[in-house]
């Protein structure tokens, strides 16, 4: 039974993103919250909840949200946590904020991501601090065989998908090309002024086959915050509310190389049921895109096409500007900026509000935002809308 939304995103704060070095990871987080408060027309004292997705630069800090609370000078919080579900964390934070607000534990929650994996070129020692090294961790036997980093792990799953379903390099490339076309309409995108054709895709260097460099997300410094509050208060604030119509999570466990299915299939069930929608009702998708391949699998698992048919679905142009199902309309993490799961949420908020400028899609009544982590193994879904029901 679909329900009327009881919570909404009311503030969005985004620091400059990419090769920006003028703040630490904590500084980016504070700045993002300040910008989100300003966007919402809220004061710092209005916040009584703080959720943090600490990026790589936070290291293994045991109490990240407390550290951020102190940096922000926040008093008397009623909700605080650092969360770790990889790329699904951002959407999961928004969900936990909404649940706590609905339960009456707190009223207004900032959900924050920040990271600073990139080190200025002049400060780098050896190979460290660049985009290639940031996610290159490997341990024990994997390193002995030369299997380094997240790219290599996803490449194994993508290769299976190509083998089982006939997905091609052109199909992967068509995701990169479509998203770059969106980025070319987004002045804030890191690749705003760099067009990409399918020929350019094939000519770009390999990182780990089947992934060219443009199959892989960017590595970016920066911070993003969103503020969640109850629907009634949301209507009295500066910006139009972006209502949380549906929420879901899916964490399938097991080996995604066997199933070639992400947590989206599970997460969609509750999110779509709560919102009372079917895939055909979605106007625009902001899908977590650590790789081109992730977008393909996610489209399948939400039911926009059948399993194994995402390659042709995208290659036919549906997700491009002007296509029937706009996907990753800011350029996404492949072409705009990599703020983990906050990149899709931030763009979803802009689209739902109608604030996306040249890239604004005409129909934005139902906006789907997804987060994915752990090699297709964690997933969180938000169904967002400018309308409460």
């Amino acid at each position, binding site marked *: 039974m679909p329900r009327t939304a009881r919570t909404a995103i009311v503030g969005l704060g985004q620091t400059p993103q990419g090769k920006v070095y003028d703040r630490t990871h904590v500084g980016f987080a504070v700045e993002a919250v300040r910008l989100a408060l300003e966007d919402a027309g809220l004061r710092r004292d209005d916040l009584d909840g703080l959720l943090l997705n600490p990026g790589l630069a936070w290291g293994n800090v045991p109490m990240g949200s407390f550290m951020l609370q102190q940096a922000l000078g926040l008093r008397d919080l009623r909700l605080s946590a650092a969360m770790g579900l990889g790329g699904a964390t951002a959407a999961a934070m928004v969900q936990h904020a909404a649940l706590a607000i609905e339960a009456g534990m707190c009223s207004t929650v900032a959900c924050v991501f920040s990271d600073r994996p990139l080190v200025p070129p002049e400060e780098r020692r050896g190979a460290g601090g660049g985009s290639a090294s940031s996610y290159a961790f490997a341990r024990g036997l994997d*390193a*002995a*065989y*030369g299997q380094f980093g997240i790219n290599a792990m996803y490449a*194994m799953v993508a*290769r299976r998908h190509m*083998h089982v379903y006939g997905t091609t390099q052109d199909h992967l490339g068509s995701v990169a090309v479509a998203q770059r076309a969106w980025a070319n309409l987004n002045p804030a995108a890191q690749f705003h002024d760099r067009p990409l054709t399918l020929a350019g895709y094939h000519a770009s*260097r390999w*990182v780990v*086959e089947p992934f060219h460099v443009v199959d892989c997300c960017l590595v970016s410094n920066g911070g993003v915050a969103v503020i969640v509050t109850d629907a009634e208060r949301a209507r009295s604030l500066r910006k139009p509310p972006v209502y949380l119509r549906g929420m879901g999570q899916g964490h399938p466990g097991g080996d995604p190389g066997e199933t070639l299915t992400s947590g989206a299939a599970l997460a969609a069930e509750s999110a779509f049921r709560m919102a009372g929608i079917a895939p055909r009702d979605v106007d625009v998708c902001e899908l977590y895109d650590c790789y081109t391949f992730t977008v393909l699998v996610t489209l399948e698992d939400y039911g926009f096409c059948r399993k194994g048919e995402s390659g042709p679905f995208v290659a036919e142009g549906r997700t491009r500007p002007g296509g029937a199902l706009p996907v990753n309309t800011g350029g996404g993490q492949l072409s705009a900026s990599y703020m983990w799961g906050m990149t899709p949420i931030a763009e979803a908020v802009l689209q739902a509000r109608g604030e996306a400028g040249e890239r604004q899609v005409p129909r934005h009544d139902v906006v789907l935002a997804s987060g994915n982590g752990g090699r297709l193994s964690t997933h969180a879904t938000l169904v967002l809308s400018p309308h409460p029901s």
Partner: protein
Amino acid sequence: MSAKPVPAIEPAMAPFFAAARERRLVVQRCTACGALRFPAREICSECLATAAEWVPVSGRGAVFSYNVMHQVYHPGFAAEVPYAVVLVRLAEGPKLISSLVDCPPGEITIGMPVEVVFDDVSPDVTLPKFRPA
């Protein structure tokens, strides 16, 4: 030329490395439910029993998936790029990340049958690798 990383022999994996030095491939087997697993776990994720033993496997299997690494992440691999990393599914079920010898990356296909070989990479560490069978 820089050396490749050699894995430290952690106690949980010591029987695996001891067997590899003797040219035997072993995986862990839960003595409660019989499930095979690799790498080592302290508790069976199928039935949550703690007791386990290391048992020999045939060393035969098939390529489940692979990638071809072009980016150099460790100087020990700088002279080898592009090189393939394979995920082998053993005939008995468990999957292992490994290398495929005697086969250029362009000739690897998913499903191709492979068999284990052993590569002494240090006095203490022998790595199981695979070749086309």
